[in-house]
């Protein structure tokens, strides 16, 4: 892997950029690997990277039915925060924030991580109480979060309308200064490049159509559209398609897959300095470095694998955005799209071994998996390499739906689901 640096950039600028290598290889699949990761999104590629970089396992294939980073990694609204309520959630999302902070340097790839702050608005007394409870819980867990008065919120985010006569008046806000955004594509590309440089095979256009198990029930490999590939360990990191894949191994999952949509506006000059979220009116917005307003909508009410959702979901979100930020009423929306998110009953992920020996699950991130990418990948690599969970993901088991030891962020996460 050729390192990127100011020197290499200057050198290539002198010769019309003819000397750059491909960022990752496109190898033919071998018949056998030590570990197969199903799904080349950020979580899957990151898992392969940490397996190679921290656990010395490099004989890995990452199988992707489409193109890498083409699923939810390339479809989310790139927001990063860790202000969740419960200890387990604070643990994993804050682990992710710490890794985000060093990720560009570690991967030698600019993921454009920008800690511009994530501000969550409170519009009524209940919102205020919930936000302040969150702030206290977060601070006990070492997660930064602070309360802002309406005036302080306005100072942090000038476009905010804090008029008392607003339809949804701002009564204050919770601000996580360490939160922000990152370039989602660059996360997948950076992990892919770093993993490929360590010998990991990234095999695109290779759909897994079956999971093979031996006489003892343990995983022996997968069937794909490019033939049988054997491995003693298979990690499924397939987001919305997890139920489909797990069924191939005879496992039924506590998951439902829903469309989740997002949209971007035409690019404009910098007008919006941070991320603002509002639960009560269900809207969140930020501005990309390219200048587009990036807006996230809610899920549709029915399960689907269509990667498209209802237009009324988008218009509902835009109504809320225009209500809060009247300056955006005349902005043109350029693109909308949908992704399929796998939602667990308690709205917390599953990052664990499964009852099938050699089969591991990283799923259930629901509407908010991007922020966790490095943390999730890091502890999932540990789980696969050691065949036991890292202390950070020890609570995110599949068995919790049997034991009742839920991590019930459904009502407690900082956003409505």
């Amino acid at each position, binding site marked *: 892997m050729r390192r990127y640096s100011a020197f290499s950039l200057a050198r290539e600028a002198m010769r019309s950029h003819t000397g750059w290598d491909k960022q990752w290889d496109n190898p033919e699949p071998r018949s056998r690997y030590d570990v197969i990761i199903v799904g080349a999104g950020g979580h899957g590629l990151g898992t392969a990277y940490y397996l190679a970089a921290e656990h010395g396992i490099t004989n890995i294939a990452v199988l992707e039915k489409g193109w890498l980073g083409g699923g939810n990694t390339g479809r989310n609204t790139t927001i990063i925060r860790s202000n969740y309520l419960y200890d387990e959630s604070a643990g994993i999302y804050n682990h992710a924030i710490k890794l985000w902070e060093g990720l560009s340097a570690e991967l030698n790839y600019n993921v454009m991580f920008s800690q511009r702050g994530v501000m969550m608005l409170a519009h009524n007394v209940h919102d205020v109480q919930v936000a302040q409870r969150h702030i206290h819980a977060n601070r006990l867990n070492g997660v930064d979060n602070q309360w802002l008065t309406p005036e302080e919120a306005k100072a942090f985010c000038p476009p905010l309308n804090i008029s008392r006569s607003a339809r949804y008046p701002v009564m204050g806000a919770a601000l996580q200064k360490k939160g922000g955004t990152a370039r989602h594509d660059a996360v997948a590309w950076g992990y892919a490049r770093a993993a490929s440089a360590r010998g990991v095979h990234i095999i695109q256009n290779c759909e897994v159509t079956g999971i093979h198990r031996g006489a003892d029930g343990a995983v022996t490999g997968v069937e794909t559209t490019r033939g049988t590939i054997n491995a003693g360990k298979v990690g499924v990191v397939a987001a919305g398609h997890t139920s489909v894949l797990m069924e191939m191994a005879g496992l039924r999952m506590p998951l439902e897959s829903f469309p989740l949509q997002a949209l971007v506006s035409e690019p404009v000059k910098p007008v919006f300095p941070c991320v603002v979220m509002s639960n009560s009116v269900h809207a969140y917005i930020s501005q990309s470095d390219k200048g587009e307003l990036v807006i996230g909508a809610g899920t549709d009410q029915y399960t689907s*694998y*269509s990667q498209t959702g209802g237009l009324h979901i988008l218009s509902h979100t835009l109504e809320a955005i225009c209500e809060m930020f009247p300056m955006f009423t005349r902005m043109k929306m350029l693109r909308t799209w949908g992704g399929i998110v796998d939602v667990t009953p308690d709205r917390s992920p599953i990052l664990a071994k499964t009852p099938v020996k050699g089969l591991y699950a990283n799923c259930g991130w629901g509407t908010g998996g991007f922020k966790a990418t490095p943390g999730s990948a890091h502890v999932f690599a540990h789980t696969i390499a050691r065949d036991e969970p890292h202390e950070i993901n020890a609570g995110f088991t599949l068995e919790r739906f049997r034991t009742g030891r839920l991590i019930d962020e459904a009502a407690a996460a900082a956003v409505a689901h």
Partner: protein
Amino acid sequence: MLLIRCPYCEEERPELEFAGAGEAHIARPANMSDISDEDFEAFFFIRENQKGIVFERWRHIHGCGRFFNAARHSVSDKFIVTYKAGEPKPELTDEQIAAVAGATGKSGK
């Protein structure tokens, strides 16, 4: 937005009139306190989540207010049939499934 036929009102109405109510044909055990944790998990948490034909409940909340069931294809989002609550899961023919299995009009399968 989906166009949904309410089997009670006997007409197609926009999705905005309806509330999705999850997977259909899940029978609540009558002896809830006696069942095992495994059975409770299967009843309460495990979902089919099929890529293909799904059987689901809807409620015509801004119409007649009644619950009913539907068979829909979860890739094209097209309905095959809606039927009244309490009726058995319909047997679907290959022709019925093939008729709804196509992609949606939108790109991005």
